[in-house]
């Protein structure tokens, strides 16, 4: 097996991975960086983020406001030391992006413009029309080309982390164009592989969001934290699950039920004002809005039609000029996919799985419990998002914690001693052996697509916007069954060159592992908090559950769920208040 030596190995080249790579290159240009990704960097799913990135920059705003919005938005499951650090560092990161060329939308004066966003008391979301993630990703990718120490390995599927004696020493990855496995040895490893939204059937997430990195870290012994918290974005296009940014509502769009009534006023989010008020109505947090949809649906107030169960997103009053300037992609997607022009038509929408609040357990330095292993971006859980992420905090998170992961990985690399060669080689051989065994397996009856479908549907049915014990137990059983049958999957494609049957099979394995942590964590959390709503336990229970769920891998059965204290520094848990009482700024 070919061995590639680097000082820092980064797995994943989306926003967080690229930011980490640049941070390493700037901290110490002499360090060799191996940046691996299963896709070319510009294909990473950061590109699909639309709305913006929050950072305090205007005179009427304060770090304290951003802190409070984030902590209460996360229903107090956020670690407050992490949030404090995040709100302090994010603006500097956004300015850095500006210096690197990110085409932020501007005010007439030439300063960056900000827009309103859900759950934020003050306008503080920096944006680049409705393609913020796209511009950030391409800015980071193009900027990364400046640094000769960043060596990219595009289209390498990372299969396993190499861990010895509580420390991470690298990973094994398959070069997709040859099918050859290679061993990457490094002093520090950073995992930035994104979320796992594809475990659900109806999601804004791209095909690549299969939780590979989460599963890899999980198998290596790192707990996955707060995995039961899965964010439904309230406005996805029916059928395709394509995201329509929260910016639609930030700019003043309404959500209407079948009677053209702004139903959110019935869910403690009112009063319904014609122009947007922050933290009210359509600018409430995503968990509340998605739950309101579910309630409306139960009341029979949603629209039944060729797209199933939907409500309307009304942007007609915003006018063609504003829509073209600030929401051009939304217009393009709506016309193409549902034949509705936001300028003249109501656009059908429904909640759609969008983001995993949970992920690889890290501290505020992006360090996992395994020495030398770091993680940042959606795959990690620091946690600044708690039980519900506020829109426009994730693009910020990948910058702040991507950069921190890079810097702390450099520090670690200075102190690390060489791994035991023989052990590393043996682990790599094991990883290769597993792939070879998969190729040799024959006669299996299970199809990847069928297993994936069963897992997908079961999660939506039993572990969606609302859950209860029965639905969760049913899903636990289905996932266990899928996991058992997965061992009997046979590759139909036995070739080496760009064998996507192989990668989809490995991705399914990762998804099953992520899914089991989601559903087991959800089953044991007998309370309702943020995005985790239990019909059989409707109240938040701070006595028993003001703590992070920690799912540990168990190769022979269900994950072991443990708990970890939440860091509370200055904001004691209280009721989450939206609507008139929240005192949000008029947008």
């Amino acid at each position: 097996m070919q061995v590639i030596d680097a000082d820092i190995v980064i797995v994943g080249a989306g926003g967080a991975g690229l930011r980490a790579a640049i941070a390493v290159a700037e901290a110490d240009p002499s360090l060799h960086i191996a940046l691996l990704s299963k896709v070319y960097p510009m294909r990473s799913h950061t590109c699909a983020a639309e709305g913006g990135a929050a950072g305090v920059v205007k005179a009427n705003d304060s770090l304290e406001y951003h802190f409070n919005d984030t902590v209460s938005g996360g229903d107090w499951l956020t670690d407050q030391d992490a949030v404090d650090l995040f709100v302090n560092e994010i603006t500097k990161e956004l300015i850095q992006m500006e210096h690197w060329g990110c085409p932020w939308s501007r005010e007439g004066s030439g300063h960056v413009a900000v827009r309103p966003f859900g759950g934020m008391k003050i306008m503080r979301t920096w944006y680049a029309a409705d393609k913020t993630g796209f511009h950030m990703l391409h800015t980071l990718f193009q900027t990364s080309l400046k640094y000769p120490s960043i060596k990219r390995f595009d289209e390498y599927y990372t299969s396993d982390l190499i861990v010895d004696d509580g420390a991470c020493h690298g990973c094994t990855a398959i070069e997709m164009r040859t099918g050859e496995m290679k061993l990457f040895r490094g002093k520090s490893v950073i995992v930035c592989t994104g979320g796992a939204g594809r475990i659900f059937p109806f999601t804004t997430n791209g095909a690549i969001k299969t939780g590979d990195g989460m599963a890899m870290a999980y198998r290596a012994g790192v707990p996955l934290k707060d995995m039961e918290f899965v964010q439904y974005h309230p406005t996805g296009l029916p059928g395709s699950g394509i995201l329509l940014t929260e910016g639609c509502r930030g700019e003043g769009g309404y959500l209407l039920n079948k009677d053209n009534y702004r139903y959110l006023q019935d869910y403690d989010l009112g009063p319904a004002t014609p122009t947007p008020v922050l933290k009210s109505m359509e600018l409430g947090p995503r968990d509340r809005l998605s739950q309101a949809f579910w309630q409306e649906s139960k009341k029979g107030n949603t629209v039944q039609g060729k797209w199933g169960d939907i409500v309307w997103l009304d942007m007609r009053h915003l006018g063609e000029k504003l829509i073209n300037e600030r929401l051009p992609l939304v217009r393009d997607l709506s016309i193409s996919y549902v034949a509705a022009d936001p300028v003249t038509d109501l656009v059908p929408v429904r909640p759609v799985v969008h983001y995993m609040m949970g992920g690889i357990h890290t501290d505020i330095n992006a360090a996992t419990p395994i020495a030398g292993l770091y993680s940042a971006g959606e795959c990690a859980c620091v946690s600044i998002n708690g039980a519900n992420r506020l829109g426009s905090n994730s693009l910020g998170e990948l910058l702040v914690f991507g950069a921190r992961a890079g810097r702390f990985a450099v520090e670690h690399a200075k102190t690390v001693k060489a791994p035991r060669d023989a052990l590393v080689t043996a682990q790599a051989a094991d990883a290769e052996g597993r792939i070879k065994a998969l190729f040799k397996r024959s006669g299996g009856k299970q199809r990847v697509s069928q297993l994936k479908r069963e897992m997908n549907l079961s999660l939506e049915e039993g572990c969606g916007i609302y859950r209860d014990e029965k639905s969760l137990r049913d899903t636990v059983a289905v996932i266990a069954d899928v996991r058992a049958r997965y061992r009997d999957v046979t590759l139909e494609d036995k070739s080496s060159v760009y064998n996507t049957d192989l990668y989809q099979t490995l991705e399914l394995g990762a998804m099953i592992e992520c899914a089991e942590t989601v559903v087991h964590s959800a089953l044991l959390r007998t309370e309702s908090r943020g995005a985790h709503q239990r019909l059989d336990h409707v109240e938040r229970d701070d006595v028993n559950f003001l703590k992070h769920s920690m799912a540990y891998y168990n190769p022979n059965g269900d994950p072991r769920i443990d708990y970890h204290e939440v860091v509370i520094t200055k904001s004691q848990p209280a009721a989450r208040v939206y609507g008139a009482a929240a005192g949000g700024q008029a947008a």
Partner: protein
Amino acid sequence: MSKRTIQLEVLRYRPEQDKEPFFQTYTVPCEEEWVVLDALNYVKDEIDRTLSFRWSCHMFVCGSCGYKIDGEPKLGCKAFLRDYGDNIRVEPLDNFPIERDLVVVIDDFVEKLQSVKPYIIAKEEKALAAGEYIQTPAQLKAFKQYSMCINCLLCYSACPQYGLTNQEFIGPAALALAHRYNMDSRDVGRSAREHVLAAHEGVWECSFVGACSVVCPKDVDPAGAIQQAKFTSAVDYLTSMVGIGGK
């Protein structure tokens, strides 16, 4: 949702067993709302697991799923079945070596992208504490269109010059990106990019067929960018002849 059945003719090439590419036809039951990518995924999931193609976002922004569909370079996620007949032919993009099936080798493009220095070259590094650069909406507008490229490579597939020069021509997307940075009020790197843009295989290789701009799914208009770059390149050449420095 209404159903229909299409014949999907896909160019197959499995280097370990096929001497050369050939067409394989799949019968695919479709929903009327589908795009070509959905039909390919149906084949992958239900009919033939050996078919390989790239895709991810399904919303015109990641740039993975560029294929030639009925002779025209298109994004698979933006090619709606409603716009096609019942026989649809899907091939890999032209002008790139076929790695396998619909997957092409794009190393050449990635090198070209890097060669144009697609990043801000500032006059002097500005401290973060000094805040952002002032850039008016008009200054932003001057380059914004050219920053929208998703690197899907439809333009390289459509560009005859790229093929006729055996891939020597730097090509539409990379040149448009160079122009994007040249036009950015924060950038002073035009002279650093000039030797690439003004080289034989740079902007002057473009004969303004204009196909790149026609097929671009994001309205980037690389052909326009290249013609404008020709003008600035000529001006830079002339001013350097008479000894006045350019940007």
